[in-house]
């Protein structure tokens, strides 16, 4: 299970991620990304990797969900 994690300190609201990955990332009224923390569907993992790569602030990481809660 892979999920998207945003580093809120690094993020500067460029918004590229929400354009690339609207299925998993939306923007709040100030342009900062919202993720719900749920596992990413397998077909979105590749494009999520691209979103992480393309983030100008390197604020996105993809995390393997561990077994513990």
């Amino acid at each position, binding site marked *: 299970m892979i999920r998207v*994690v945003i*580093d*809120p*300190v*690094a*993020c*500067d*609201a460029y918004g590229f991620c929400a354009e690339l990955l609207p299925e998993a990332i939306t923007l*709040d*009224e*100030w*342009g*900062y990304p*919202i993720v719900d923390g749920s596992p990413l569907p397998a077909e979105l993992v590749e494009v999520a990797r691209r979103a992480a790569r393309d983030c100008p602030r390197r604020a996105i990481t993809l*995390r393997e969900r561990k077994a513990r809660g």
Partner: protein
Amino acid sequence: MVSASETLPETKRYRILGTPSDLAGHVAALGPAPLPTRSSRTWRESFVSRLEASGLPGRGGAGFPAAIKLAVAHGAGGRGTVVVNGMEGEPASDKDKLLLLRTPHLVLDGAQLLAAACGARRVTVCVPEGRDHVAAAVANAMSERAGTTHAPANETLVRPPDRFVAGEESALVRWIDSGASLPAFRPDKGMPLRIGRQGALVHNAETLAHVAMIARTGPEAFRAHGLVEDPGTCLVTISGAVENHGVVEVDRGTPLMAIAQRATPHLAPKALLVGGYGGAWVGPEDFETPYASLSLRAVGSSAGVGVVIVLGPDSCGLMESARIVHYLAGQSAGQCGPCVYGLPAIADDMARLARGRVDVALMARLDRRLHEVNGRGACRHPDGAVQLVRSALKVFAADVREHAAGAPCAHADRPTVLRFPSLLGTGGS
């Protein structure tokens, strides 16, 4: 040096809030802290088992078990630092100031015991800039202990900036490390904090006072107070519309109203603010709720920092909440967008609501903002503000309906019963 069991005093009443004492008075009253004479695994195991058996959670707000925090720090490798968090950025809280002023040796003993248990070589006490009377008491206590068996780890005092989030543990450690007082984004809180390459164990002053007491009395004396699932005593600062504001030590599980009555409320309270400015309002129907983590969570609150503020019948809870969120917005570290933009927006919505300036979109917008801001900062600063506003909308629901119908609050312009540092300057307790 005598072992802990030999010095165990007759403690029918477990209390950390003692009389003011210098080192001689402190040792006469409680005996020396049961520190090991040299590095000893047996001592460590017995100390850790006492701490575990006590079930002591951190008393700084998050309530994380002290024994687990120690295990994480121990795992980070020795020679680190025990950080005494005396920042107490919560404007309505005086408990840590009071402990450091009255019984600094008890707090320092707790830090020394934990240092011995995790191999730390340093104890660093943090008292914010401007709080000079507290710093003087700590410095004086340190000079009494320096070079004695009471202070095997080197004790130093440092003065971080006096801001609300400066006391957040990752911000505090970072300030000591690099001079930047900023919370860190830590998705995994199980990772030890570090100063340079060495581990740092951070505890607030009250937690350390309990550690020092439990090491002396054993876990039973602590557990003789409070509830099975939430044992011991805790310090609570009572303020607001009361005759005598101040700090009391109460058993966990004491009903909220019984705590408030210790300070003699002026009139029948309209609501209680429990847990500080990032806590939650509790209405009269829940005044008998036990002051304990699980019970408070069930009524939408949290024990948080030990704070109870009494709101009188002549105050507007919505306007007071707006003032608090406005204050919290100004105290943001300025790192995370949802906190930087979200808190002022929420404060503005609340002020409009209290003044009856409600347009159709306001309630929906406020609701969405609360949902979107929650959990989206590096630290939990914005989450506290969200919890506070949610509780205000629930507890003052009748006022919300009235104001939403266009009637401003009759009490909205009354002076606040709350304390804000910007209005008061740096005051003592």
